[in-house]
C-alpha cells in the first residue's frame, strides 16, 4: 500500500518488520573484523528497539563462523551453507538474500561498506524497492516526522553518514523495509567475545537457479596484506600538506617531515612499546611528490575515501581538518593537532591544540620523549 503519492508501506505493514540483520563475511572459516564490528552496530540498534540481532551469512563450511557470530553478540544466525556458494557473486547472493528478507521481514539490514558490500547491497535494495544509505559511521533510532503526509514514523533508523556540504547527515528510510545501510569499517568496536554463548541457528537451503551461474569465476587469488595496519595502531601520526613549508614559509622537503614523523614513531615503538603507524591526508598522497614515492602511499590515507581509524592517540601534523579527513579519525580518543593556522578546522575537534610550526614542534617532542627523565 502506498502513502498517497509516496511509495512505501502502511504503518501496519511497517510494524511487521522485526529484527536487525547484519550481513557478515567469512574468511578462512572466521568472521572478518568488520563483520564483528557490524554485529556490534546491529546490537546497538536491536537493543534500542528490543529485537534480535541476526547474523546473515552465505558461503561454504560455515560451522565455525556461526559459532563465532553467537559468541560476538548475535542472537540468531541465518545462513546458507552450500559448496556452490563458496565464492561471492552478485546474482546468487542477491537472489538468496532477497528470498530470506521476503520470508523473515527484517526491520533493518546492515552491510559492510567495502567492495563486497558495495557490490551486493545496492542490488538487494533495488530488488526489494527499499532505501540504501551508504557509508554510515553511526546509527540511532528516532521518531521521524514526514512533513508531506504529516505522518510520524516511530522508531526509525537514523543512518548517520559524512556529508560533504554539511558535516554529518542523517538519512532516514521511514516508509520502507528493511532499512538497508552500509557501515564503514572502524566505527564500532567488536563486542567482547563470550565463549559458549549460543543462539538460534537457522539454516536456509536455497536451490541453485540458472541465473546464479551467469557470471563465472575463473580464478581467485589472495592479495598480500599491506604491512601498514592503520586500523590496529594505538598511535597514528598523520601528515598533511603542511609538511611542505615551515613557519617562515620556506619550502621544506616533504621527506624531512616524513622522517621526523618516522623518528617519533620509532621512539614510541621502541621505548614505549606502542603500535604506531604513519597516516596521511588524501591531498598529500595525491600530490604524488617524488620525495615520498613508495613511502606515503594510498594505503596510508585516512578519511572518507581512505581508512577509518580510532587509535588512542591521533597526531595531525599540518592537516587542515577537511570534513572528509575528519570523518576518518574523529573517533580517536585523543586528538593532537599541530597547525600554524589558529583557525584551522582541525582545532574544532582536537583535544590538544598546538598552534605552531610542526618543524619547530616535532624536534621538541622527539627530544623530550627520547631523553627520558
Amino acid at each position, binding site marked *: 500500500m502506498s502513502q498517497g503519492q509516496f511509495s512505501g508501506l502502511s504503518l501496519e505493514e511497517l510494524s511487521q518488520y522485526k529484527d536487525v540483520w547484519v550481513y557478515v563475511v567469512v574468511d578462512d572459516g572466521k568472521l572478518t573484523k568488520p563483520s564483528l564490528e557490524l554485529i556490534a552496530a546491529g546490537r546497538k540498534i536491536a537493543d534500542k528497539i528490543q529485537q534480535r540481532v541476526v547474523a546473515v551469512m552465505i558461503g561454504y563450511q560455515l560451522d565455525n563462523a556461526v559459532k563465532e557470530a553467537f559468541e560476538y553478540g548475535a542472537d540468531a544466525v541465518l545462513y546458507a551453507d552450500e559448496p556452490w556458494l563458496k565464492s561471492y557473486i552478485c546474482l546468487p547472493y542477491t537472489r538468496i538474500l532477497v528470498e530470506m528478507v521476503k520470508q523473515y521481514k527484517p526491520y533493518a539490514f546492515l552491510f559492510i561498506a567495502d567492495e563486497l558490500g558495495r557490490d551486493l547491497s545496492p542490488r538487494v535494495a533495488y530488488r526489494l524497492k527499499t532505501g540504501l*544509505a551508504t557509508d554510515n559511521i553511526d546509527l540511532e533510532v528516532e521518531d521521524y516526522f514526514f512533513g508531506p503526509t504529516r505522518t510520524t514514523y516511530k522508531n526509525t533508523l537514523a543512518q548517520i553518514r559524512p556529508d560533504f556540504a554539511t558535516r554529518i547527515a542523517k538519512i532516514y528510510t521511514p516508509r520502507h523495509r528493511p532499512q538497508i545501510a552500509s557501515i564503514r569499517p572502524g566505527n564500532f568496536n567488536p563486542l567482547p567475545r563470550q565463549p559458549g554463548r549460543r543462539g538460534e541457528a537457522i539454516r536456509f537451503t536455497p536451490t541453485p537457479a540458472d541465473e546464479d551461474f551467469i557470471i563465472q569465476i575463473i580464478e581467485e587469488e589472495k592479495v598480500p596484506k599491506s604491512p601498514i595496519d592503520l586500523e590496529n595502531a594505538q598511535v597514528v601520526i598523520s601528515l598533511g600538506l603542511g609538511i611542505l613549508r615551515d613557519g617562515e614559509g620556506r619550502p621544506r622537503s616533504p621527506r624531512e617531515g616524513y622522517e621526523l614523523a618516522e623518528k617519533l614513531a620509532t621512539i614510541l615503538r621502541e621505548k614505549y612499546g606502542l603500535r604506531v603507524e604513519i597516516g596521511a591526508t588524501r591531498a598529500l598522497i595525491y600530490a604524488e611528490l617524488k620525495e615520498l614515492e613508495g613511502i606515503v602511499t594510498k594505503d596510508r590515507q585516512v578519511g572518507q575515501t581512505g581508512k577509518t581509524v580510532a587509535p588512542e592517540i591521533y597526531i595531525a601534523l599540518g592537516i587542515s581538518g577537511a570534513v572528509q579527513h575528519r570523518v576518518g579519525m574523529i573517533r580517536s580518543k585523543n586528538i593532537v593537532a599541530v597547525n600554524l593556522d589558529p583557525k584551522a578546522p582541525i582545532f574544532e575537534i582536537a583535544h590538544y591544540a598546538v598552534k605552531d610550526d610542526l618543524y619547530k614542534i616535532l624536534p621538541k617532542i622527539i627530544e623530550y620523549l627520547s631523553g627520558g627523565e
Partner: protein
Amino acid sequence: MVKGVPARTTGVITVSGVLRREEMDLVMNPHDSKALQAAHYLRQAVGGKIIAVSMGPEPKIVPIMQDLYEPNQESRYVPRMPIYGVDENIVLSDRRMAGADTLATAYALSAGVKKIIDIHADAVKNLINMVESGASAAEIERKAEELYRENLIPNKIYSTLSTIGDSAVKLFAEGKITREELLNRLHSALEDVYNFIIIAGMKTSDGETGNTGPQTAEGLGELLGKLIPHVAFVRDFEIFPDERIIVASRRVGNLVQRLRIPLPCLLTIHTEYTPKIPPASYQKKAKRNGYRGQVKKVKVWDADYIGADPSRLGFSGSPTIVGPGMEIGKPPVQKIVGESLVFERDVDEFEWRGGKYGPFKKGDLVQNLPEELVMELREKNIIGVFTLKHLLDELFGGVKLVARAV
C-alpha cells in the same frame, strides 16, 4: 553513464580557504573519466558506438556533455583525456526527476537506457519488416540509408564508407546475397543491439555512494525482463568479441577475483583501471560493427519520452530522505599549548571567599574560576600554563610506566 557533480567536490588539493569561482558549476564526476576510457577501449575492440547518458538539470548538464565530444581538448567541465569523444549524448532531464535518491536515479537511468535500446532495435526491426514483407531492394536501400544517417544501424548493414563495400543491404541490392541471407544478417544485428555493455564510474565525488551502477543493472533487468549481471570496481578487463564475454578482475575482501561475464552486462570501473590496447586483428571487424559517426547535438529526453512511471521518479519515488546536516561535535575540553591553564597538582576541595571549589586533579583545565583566585593559584604555582611537556606527559606518561614495569 556520467554524472554532473559540483566542482568543489572534485578538487583533490585544496588551497585552504580559497574557493575557485567556477566551483559552483557542475562538472563531470572525476571517477567517470575511467568509465569513458573503458568505453573507448571497447569501441576500439568491437566497434559499436559510445552513447553517454546523464540525468540532471538540462542547462547544467548539456555543457558537460557537449565537451564529451572532444575530450582531448581543454575543457572547464571534463578532464582532458587522450581518447576520441563519445558518439552520442543523451540527457535525462525532467522536474519530476528532482530530489531522487539512488533507487529513483537508477530507475530513471535504466528507463533511459531501455529507450536507447528500443530505438536501435526498432530501427533494425523496421528493416526486417520491410524485407519480410517483400519490399523492393531500392525501397530497402532508401530506408537503410535514412537509418544510417540517423546513426541507428551499423556499417555492416549499410554504409557509405568506401572501406566498407560489402554492407548487407548493398550486397542484396547488387544481387550478391539472397533476401534470406539479408534477413539473417539483420537478425544478427538485432541481437547485437541487445549485447550492450554499460559502463559507469565506481562512485561520484558528491554522493559517494557507488549504488547507481549496480542498481541500474538491476533496474534495466527488470524493464527488459532479463537479468543484467554487473561487476563493481573492475580494475582490469578485456573483451573477447567472438565469445561475447568480458573477463574482468576485481577485489573482494582479500581476494582478487577473475570473472567471466557474458554480454549484456554492466561494469563499474575502479580508479586504478588502465585501459588495454586491443589487438590489431580486431580492427576490421570493429569498423564493420561501427556506426556512421558522431551526432553532435545533445539530445534531451523527459520522463514521458522514456516511458518512466512518474511515481517511481524523484523525491516521491525515493525511499530515503536526507535529514538536516549537523556539525561534528567539539571535544568537551580542549587544551591549547601555550594558552590553557591547568592544575599542576591534585588539589582537595577548598573554600575561598565563601565559595567552595574543587577538588581538582593534576592536569585539569582551569575553567570558570574567579580571575583573582586564578592569579593567587598561579603565584603559588598550583596552576600554570599548559606546555608541550604537559601534553606529552599526559599522553605518554602512563604508558612509560607500563612499559618500564614490563
